[in-house]
């Protein structure tokens, strides 16, 4: 290195460290002013459809909270959404968490898909960022002892158990016409985990699993899988997939004239989707789904449904209302914490008893990050609408089981 080069180097590194030192106060100053909330979802890639609905739900909630006066205990501080795109890939989700951390977020809501949530909650834990998991049903997400991770909705063990029990109830009430089951699931964490739980518990109640088929995301041709279904002729089909594949599977079945006695979805991607019901009414008719759902008797749910359906090309799906509730849950925690510091919010979430929601969960109670009251409902598509059929206290219509095409 020549003398000139060394001087230049020293000059540059001095300038750099001065700049860095000047930069630091900016980060600590971020505590006052708006409360930054990371909103992280897969808005591009194969989960784009669901991811965008998740973002919509979160943004509606943030807008409502802000126009209602913001966080009152912080002097009306507004919530500021820091949007992130996980691109349907866990590693991209992680890098978005890193970016959000550098921007000084107080909490993160996301990231919809179990595989992505597993990675992002862990990345957030590194910086003690409270992470409210909006959907991600894999139980591992809340079973790793991460103090920052909270899930408002149910995990797939809870959903699978409820689904199996309710399926048995429906089958028994109808005189046990169904005994064989075929499971078609998507290959990532959510589908595989759900399928494993179902396959291990159904035989105990007397059901024979004829086949468990997994498929990739995306799959654009279900001809072979439907041909296998035709050959095996199961009484019940249990699909567990994301929206596009669920829709294509059912449409291919219709195309090939394959109609089992019941399509009983467990966390079916399109089964309780108003979009699916609207676009393919004859395919969706009769489909049963054990999935996230709102209390159909709660006026607040109906009001939000009306608001969302009034928007152009939007549908009131679980992605929307779970994210809506997750943001409100977070806002309640920030309110009680009286602070936008991450540790304070984690503390507030851990002791949350929030009950101003329209889910059939009762007051919130987190044990190891899981809301213990969370549970799914069982819906059926009847007469062009989605109605809750089980449990009885939320019933809107009587279930039709088995289904005659």
């Amino acid at each position, binding site marked *: 290195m020549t003398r000139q080069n060394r001087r230049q180097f020293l000059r540059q590194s001095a300038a750099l460290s001065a700049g860095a030192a000047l930069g630091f106060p900016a980060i600590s100053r971020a505590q006052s002013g708006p409360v930054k909330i990371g909103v992280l979802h897969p808005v591009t890639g194969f989960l*784009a459809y669901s991811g965008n609905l998740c973002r919509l739900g979160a943004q509606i909630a943030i807008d409502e909270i802000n126009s209602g006066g913001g966080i009152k205990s912080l002097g009306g501080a507004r919530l500021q959404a820091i949007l992130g795109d996980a691109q349907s890939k866990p590693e991209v989700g992680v890098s978005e968490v890193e970016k959000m951390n550098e921007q000084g977020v107080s909490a993160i809501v996301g990231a919809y898909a179990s595989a992505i949530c597993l990675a992002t909650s862990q990345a957030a834990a590194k910086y003690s960022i409270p992470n409210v998991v909006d959907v991600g049903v894999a139980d591992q997400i809340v079973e790793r002892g991460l103090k920052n991770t909270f899930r408002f909705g149910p995990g797939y063990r809870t959903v699978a158990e409820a689904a199996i029990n309710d399926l048995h109830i429906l089958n028994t009430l109808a005189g046990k016409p169904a005994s064989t089951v075929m499971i078609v699931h998507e290959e990532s964490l959510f589908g595989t985990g759900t399928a494993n739980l179902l396959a291990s518990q159904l035989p105990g109640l007397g059901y024979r699993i004829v086949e468990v088929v997994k498929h990739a995301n995306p799959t654009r041709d279900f001809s072979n899988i439907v*041909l*296998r279904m035709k050959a095996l002729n199961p009484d019940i089909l249990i699909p567990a997939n994301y929206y596009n594949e669920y829709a294509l599977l059912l449409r291919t079945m219709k*195309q090939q*004239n394959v109609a089992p006695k019941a399509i009983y979805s467990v966390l079916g991607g399109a089964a309780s989707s108003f979009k699916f019901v609207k676009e393919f009414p004859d395919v969706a008719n009769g489909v049963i789904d054990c999935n996230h759902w709102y209390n159909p008797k709660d006026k607040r749910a109906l009001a939000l449904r009306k608001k969302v359906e009034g928007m152009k090309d939007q549908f009131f799906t679980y992605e929307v209302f779970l994210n809506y509730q997750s943001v409100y849950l977070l806002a309640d925690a920030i309110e009680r914490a009286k602070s936008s510091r991450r540790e304070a919010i984690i503390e507030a979430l851990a002791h949350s008893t929030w009950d101003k929601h329209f889910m059939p969960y009762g007051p919130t109670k987190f044990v190891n990050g899981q809301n213990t009251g969370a549970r799914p409902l069982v819906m059926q598509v009847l007469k062009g609408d989605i109605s809750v059929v089980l449990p009885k206290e939320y019933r809107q219509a009587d279930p039709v089981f088995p289904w005659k095409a």
Partner: protein
Amino acid sequence: MLDFPILFASLLNGLTQGAVYALVALGLTLIYGVLHIINFAHGALLMVALYGVFFLNARLGIDPYVALPVMVPAMFVLGYCLQRLVVGRAGHGKDENILLVTLGLAIVLENAALAAFKSDTRTIETAYTFSTVNLAGAMIAVPKVIAFFGALAVAALLLALISRTDLGRAIRAVAKERQGARIVGIDVEHVFAVSFGIGLACLGAAACFLLPAYYVNPQVGNGFVLIAFTIVVLGGMGSFAGALAGGFIVGVIESLGGLWLGESLGQIGIFLAFIAILLFRPQGLFGAGRRA
């Protein structure tokens, strides 16, 4: 599973899918046969063609089959220009260079598409997407049936072009003996570019037939290039009949394999067949034996 109606339906699915594979492989085998280059960008160019068909449908409402007379010439022009201006120039005549150039082209195209269109998977809906044709009990989707006959028609056209026209004769001459062709006055650079153009025109046709029953995203080409190579080597490099036969064989193996072993494991059948052919008949099914 050995029920005949099920097997028959799977067979027909395989044949229709194989026809599209064959069309993709035809372009590849022509490019290899004439230019003696392995076009690694073939999959990425198919992806470009698919996006073309997609946007024609999404923005202008043009039916994918109606888009054929637009896509095929457009892809031909693209291929001609690519060969004349990019591949030919950058290669400096050396085959190893051209390999890298096409690989580079593939990477550039894929990431340009990612930047321009994001990684979302796009599909189109047409009135006949879910209609089926009943063939002796097997319900085959209409787009697939159209793809089958379309691919056969394009292959026949290509064969006629190569064997009956002067251009075809020039192409065959350049393929057989480059220097000799130059000596008798054939514009070899022009023939290279035309062949590349025809190869891409096949991709344009394949895209029109493929999109109604498939999807497009920036990575979609990767799956196809692998299968196309397998078919070209299986059928014999440079052989049209080989590409056609290879396409059908691979399509049927993939379909039946998927039926028996599941979608992911079913792919193994293709590569087992590939290895078997290479072991027992390395020049491919219709390959011309070793070149002197």
